[in-house]
Structures are given as structure tokens and as C-alpha cells.
């Protein structure tokens, strides 16, 4: 009883805070001091990103050019998470066969596939593939980018697993490809941005953004697919 009352009071307070916060005016971003000059960072980015980076989406300009370190370590984070998942599932594998002799199953046939879901997934397959590649390839012009597009493609492969749980994915090959892509994701910005090719060849800016988005997209797609297939088939060797 006391717990229920406490929960109700807590929820009421939470709702009140939400309403109060949503009605207060947020502060505009304060300018940042750099040396003697005062620089308005958002204003600077919004004014100059088109000519400096070749992108028409300011978010892409920031995560692939101004703050590319963030993207590199984000890619590393996902890679480490996947290595960890593979490692812990490998520990859990038991290889000896079941010794127990007699078996009786109850409630057989409860795991049948839903016809509606299979049909709808089959219908959506090409549409979602197209949308995923669109989001990756146009990440520098429209909202989206490598991570979002890769996640859309991964959702599709995982949806296929829900409909038809067959382990026909070579996870170790996918993992190797993913690691190779990570090396490329490190190399491309290091060579292009840190050696200042970006300023010398402005025509290469847009191809650089597209290349980075494609690399990140494929890497994220492979990584997330590996994770879900690990959850789905933890008994088979990888």
C-alpha cells in the first residue's frame, strides 16, 4: 500500500516536472571564448559548413569533418561491444551431447511461424533495402547517415531471422569484414583530414563524405547482424 502511494506521488511529481520543464524557455547557446576572440560556435558552423566540408546537412558536416574523432571512437565502441558479445557466447558453449534417455514434449507445435508477419516482411524487403541505401548515400545532404542507414539494413536482416530462423550467415566472415572496414574507417579520415587534403582538393570533400557514410553503414549493418545472430544461435560454433 505504502509502495503504491509512493509510486503515485513519484509519478505525479515526474509529470509536474515534465510540464514545468516544457514551459520554461531554454537558454540560447552561449558563445565560447577562444583566446582573445569570442566565437559563436554554432553560428560559425552554420555559416561555413557548406564551403568547408561540401555537405548540405550540418550534422553530417560535424560528425564527419569538424568532430571526426567522435565518429572514430564510436566505431571502436561498437566493435568492442561485438567482440565482447562473441567472447561471452563462446564461453557458454557446451559441446557434449545430452545423456538423458527418455523425453516427452508437451505443447508441441507452439512455435509455428505467423503467416501475416512472413508475408509482410517479404513485401517490405525491397522497400526497406532501398530506403537503407538511400539514407546511407544521401547522409551528407538529407537527415540520416551511415549509422542510421546501417541500422535500417540490419533491422531487415534481423526481421528475416524472425520469419525464418535459419543460420546461413557465416558470422566469423562477417566479423572479419567488419574489422577490415573499421581499419578503413580509421585510415580514410586520418589521411584525408589530418594531412589537410581537404583544404587542397575541395572537389574531394563530397566523395569523402559519401565514402565514409558507406563504410560506416556497412560496418554498422554487419555488426548489429552479428549481435542478433549470436543471440539467436548461441549453440553453434562460430
Amino acid at each position, binding site marked *: 500500500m505504502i509502495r503504491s502511494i509512493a509510486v503515485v506521488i513519484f509519478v505525479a511529481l515526474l509529470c509536474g516536472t515534465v510540464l514545468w520543464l516544457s514551459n520554461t524557455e531554454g537558454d540560447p547557446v552561449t558563445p565560447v571564448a577562444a583566446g582573445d576572440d569570442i566565437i559563436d560556435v554554432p553560428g560559425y558552423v552554420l555559416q561555413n559548413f557548406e564551403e568547408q566540408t561540401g555537405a548540405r546537412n550540418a550534422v553530417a558536416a560535424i560528425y564527419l569533418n569538424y568532430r571526426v574523432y567522435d565518429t572514430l571512437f564510436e566505431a571502436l565502441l561498437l566493435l568492442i561491444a561485438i567482440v565482447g558479445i562473441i567472447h561471452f557466447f563462446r564461453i557458454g558453449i557446451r559441446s557434449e551431447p545430452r545423456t*538423458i534417455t*527418455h*523425453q516427452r514434449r*508437451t505443447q508441441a507445435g507452439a512455435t509455428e511461424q505467423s503467416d501475416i508477419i512472413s508475408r509482410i516482411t517479404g513485401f517490405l524487403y525491397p522497400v526497406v533495402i532501398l530506403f537503407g541505401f538511400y539514407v546511407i548515400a544521401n547522409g551528407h545532404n538529407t*537527415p*540520416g547517415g551511415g*549509422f542510421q542507414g546501417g541500422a535500417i539494413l540490419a533491422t531487415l536482416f*534481423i526481421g528475416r531471422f524472425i520469419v525464418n530462423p535459419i543460420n546461413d550467415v557465416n558470422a566469423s566472415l562477417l566479423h572479419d569484414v567488419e574489422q577490415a572496414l573499421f581499419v578503413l574507417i580509421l585510415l580514410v579520415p586520418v589521411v584525408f583530414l589530418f594531412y589537410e587534403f581537404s583544404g587542397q582538393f575541395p572537389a574531394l570533400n563530397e566523395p569523402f563524405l559519401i565514402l565514409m557514410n558507406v563504410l560506416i553503414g556497412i560496418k554498422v549493418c554487419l555488426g548489429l547482424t552479428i549481435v542478433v545472430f549470436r543471440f539467436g544461435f*548461441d549453440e553453434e560454433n562460430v
Partner: protein
Amino acid sequence: MIGGIGLDSILLLMTVLIAIVAVWTKILRHAVILLGIFSFICSFLYLYYGAPDVAIAEAVIGSGLVMLLYLTAIKRYRTYSIIVSVENEDRLEDATMQEFAGSSQGQLLSEIERFCLSRELEPEIVYSRESVAKIAEDGRFDLIVHPEESRFTVYGREDNYLVDELEMLLILHSTDTDTEFVRIGAES
């Protein structure tokens, strides 16, 4: 603006309500679907606040990937294997199992079965002639049932989340037979 309150505060309140309902739901699959709706509303809020990039990421991850991941996990861990250790039988025959199922101890077993079904689990009952220690060593079980002449012992893994409720169930239903519930640790 609707009566001085913006669309965003209505959506924010909806997220709070949906989160509470998701916590209180008894059926896991409903909670997963509610979390998907929660992410969808969050994604709409990001769009409303002018962050379409984050909105796409939230929609794909929150209502796509995470939901599918949870559904896969629920699907995988739905089988609940109950192992009946009948040590003193010479041979395992269908008649032995039928005899056991008809006894009062067998009714207790079917009570456990019904409990599993109410929790969306598929009870898988395996009759074995191995000793309890050997089955526990093998490690592939959720519950070991060991019926004897006058006693009925149930061994549950202490890392299983159903253990507390199963112990209560056995206390409530053990009338004439001497029932004991033992928790054993996870495999070494």
C-alpha cells in the same frame, strides 16, 4: 498549442504513462511492444524539436532493433526443462511415466506445468534415470524433480527468475506429501 500546453508536453506525458504501463505489465511480450511505442513517441519528439537525424536513429534502434532483439531473446528462452529423476526404476517405460503422472506427486508436477504455461513458457518434461547430482553436474535443466516413496524434492536453479514463485507454489499445493524445495547454485 492546445490550451496553453504544447504538443510536446502531451507526448512527454504519454512517454511517462507508457513507461509505467510497460513496467506493470505481466506479459513480457506486451512490455516489449510498449517499449517500441515509447521509442516511437521519443522519435517523434526529436523530430518536433528539429533533430531529424536523431529521430531516424531512435526510430530504427528503439522501435526496430531493440524490439526484435528482445523478441528473439524471449523466443529463445521459452523452453523450461523440468527433469524428473526416477533413480530406482530399472527401465524407463511409458507405463512408469503414466503411473507417476496419475499419482499425487504427478499432480504437483502438472501444477508446475500449468504455472509455466501461464508464464508463456513451454514446459519440457524429461524423465531420466540419472541421479540428481549427475543431472545437476550436466547443467542443462531449469528444475529437477526427485520423487521418492514419502518425499518429493524439487531442485531449482537459484539464478532462475521463477524460483521464488515456484517455491511459493509448492508450499501452497503440498498437502499430504512431504515436499521440499532446494535451491542449487549455477553451474561451476
